């Protein structure tokens, strides 16, 4: 009898060892798979070699993908640049912090981030800076003290002016217009809208244009569609809509193209050419604007190169060469403006693919 129990006892231990080693094997395989998939950082010896990691607001966002595409292309064009992208699935700041921490640990030379929260990522970025990394923000800035440079698409004022100009041309400088924006608290959109309002008020050319409403589609396709519908039933005399968000303008265009207002109500705003192409071709939309998001990624890579090489420090007045983009200059608030917005219409839309 005793013998049996001894064997029994051993088998309990054996089972335990087996179970634990099974878990271990699974973990080995998972980690091994990951380790080979991951991109390690390179510690740069010479000044032309460096590693840059992009941390976008969220992955799998069409706009972000175009931006990152520009960065990837620029990095591939330079020799010795290791390029990687890490980031959260949903636009959350806490998850960005974890990724920044891993980049700090890997001694990545340059971190380019579009912050989900201007302050929440700051202490992690400062830690990275202490570890020797250069910090660049793009699209969505952090508090000024946490980064060397901010790469911005355009001057906010330019966006406001171009929108008002486009809508005014299309409605012959008179009539009611409305704005369909993203969320009520969106920093960029609100800045642009303020410039639009100021321009409408101050420029005598626009004295016969009347802004009747500002509504919010929350950058959600369905909500924007319904809000556009509501706008036109509330204001039947509406002549034009400005939608300074890619989601809003696409949803509004879809509504207009299927309604009796098609071609009668002017729609301008910021849109992606690929999303807007069919509405330009069917006459719903005459013209809209946007910058090329890929330029932001490109500019970030060249700015990173200049920062690592030490040819710029990010102070106002610094200039650096940015490949196809020519020479870029660091302006006020250590901000680099990539370029004026491009206007798209039936004559040029087929030249763009993003």
């Amino acid at each position, binding site marked *: *009898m*005793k013998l*049996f*129990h001894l064997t*029994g*006892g051993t*088998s309990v231990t054996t*089972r*335990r060892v087996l*179970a*634990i080693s099974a*878990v*271990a094997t699974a*973990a*080995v395989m*998972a*980690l*091994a798979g*990951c*380790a080979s*998939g*991951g*991109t*390690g*950082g390179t510690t740069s010896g010479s000044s032309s070699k460096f590693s840059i990691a992009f941390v976008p607001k969220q*992955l799998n966002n069409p706009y972000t993908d175009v931006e990152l595409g520009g960065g990837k292309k620029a990095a591939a064009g330079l020799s010795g640049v290791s390029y*990687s992208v*890490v*980031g*959260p*699935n*949903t636009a*959350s*700041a*806490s*998850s960005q*912090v*974890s*990724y920044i*921490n*891993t980049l*700090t*640990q*890997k*001694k990545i030379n340059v971190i380019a981030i579009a912050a989900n*929260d*201007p*302050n*929440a990522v*700051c*202490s992690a970025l400062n830690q990275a800076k202490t570890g020797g990394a250069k910090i660049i923000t793009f699209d969505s800035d952090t508090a000024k003290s946490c980064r060397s440079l901010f790469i911005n698409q355009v001057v906010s004022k330019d966006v406001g002016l171009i929108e008002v100009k486009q809508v005014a041309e299309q409605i012959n400088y008179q009539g009611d217009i409305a704005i369909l924006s993203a*969320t*009520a*608290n969106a920093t960029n959109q609100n800045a642009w809208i303020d410039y639009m309002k100021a321009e409408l008020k101050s420029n005598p050319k626009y004295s016969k244009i009347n802004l009747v409403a500002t509504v919010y589609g929350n950058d959600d396709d369905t909500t924007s569609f319904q809000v556009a519908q509501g706008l036109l039933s509330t204001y039947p005399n509406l002549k034009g809509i400005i939608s300074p968000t890619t989601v809003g303008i696409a949803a509004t265009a879809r509504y207009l193209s299927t309604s009796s207002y098609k071609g009668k109500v002017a729609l301008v705003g910021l849109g992606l050419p690929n999303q807007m192409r069919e509405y330009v071709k069917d006459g719903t939309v005459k013209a809209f604007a946007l910058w090329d998001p890929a330029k932001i990624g490109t500019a970030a890579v060249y700015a990173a190169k200049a920062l690592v090489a030490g040819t710029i420090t990010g102070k106002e007045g610094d200039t650096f060469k940015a490949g196809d983009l020519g020479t870029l200059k660091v302006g006020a608030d250590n901000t680099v403006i990539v370029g004026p917005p491009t206007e798209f219409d039936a004559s040029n839309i087929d030249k763009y693919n993003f």
Partner: protein
Amino acid sequence: MSDTPTMTPNTTPHQTTRTTATAAPVKARSTARRLLLGRNANSVYVLVLIVILASILVPYFAGTATVSFLLIDAIPILLMAMPMALIIISGEIDLSVASTAGLSAATMGVLFHNQHWNIWWVFVACIIIGLLCGAFNGVLITTFGLPSLAVTIGTLALFRGLALVVIGDSAVADFPTDLTAFATSTIGATGIPTFMIFVAVVVIVFAVILHFTPFGRALYALGFSTEAASFVGIRVNRSKFWLYVASGGISAFAGIFWVLRYSSAQSDSVSGLELSVVAAVLLGGVSIFGGSGGIVGVVAGVLIIRTVNYSLQLAGLPDTVLTIVTGTLLVLSVIAPSVSARIRRSTEKRRNHNITREVSSA
């Protein structure tokens, strides 16, 4: 499992045979044996293995930076896992922990920034709000006898909604810098976050309550059968009520830490963390059916989740993979005990059969 020798339903015929035959193993396992072989210990072994593997396989993993970054992210999970462990052991669940923390974070932002309260009074107010949230859960579950799963899924949404009402779409970031710096500081060159001292106190308090007080021991009985527990004189409802109050208070504390660590209070602070907390508790060897588990295992469970997540992040993997891994670990931790129980039953059956044959042939 081995923590509760008196409660374990070891009623299979073989168990009886074995006990009578050798007398020792089941009845009075020595403390050392229990520490080395219990389910608690399993979690610790797995943790140690994962850490060793990660150090070998993931570049840059071995180092004090890992200790610091890994532990600071573990703090809120570790805090919330303590009351969660007790609640799950008693046979219930609390899914509203992250939303309670979020509501406390939002309140903290508004009271400090808009109402200009002294920061220490703000902390007090946040903890009180957490306690009230917990008491609300507790009343619905005990007084009205509603299932905790349904109640806390409801309050998960309710408390998050209240957070939105309190702070709206704005974010508060101007907290005192000495406090925010303290939240991210480390103890000397060890890389261990200073805040871990508070966490250690909380962990020890919960360990003592669970393992060394009649209240704690009674929770295991509760997890097995509320009826049986009330027959032996355990105040079922009162125990459960205070567990939820504790859970609310600790969650609010975790919310305060979150805000200081990120220097930012928003309506979506701490969102989605309940999944990690529940997964960590279950990975730590606490049975989802209640009645078994221990604090050491839960601490190991939290560290397992964090280590796996952090090493995957360090390897450059996207969030999608992390979510899948957390989900898989959760599922595994739920099915592993029942699978092993089934295996045990079948081997015991076979062994019994052998014994009978042996005896009859003799």
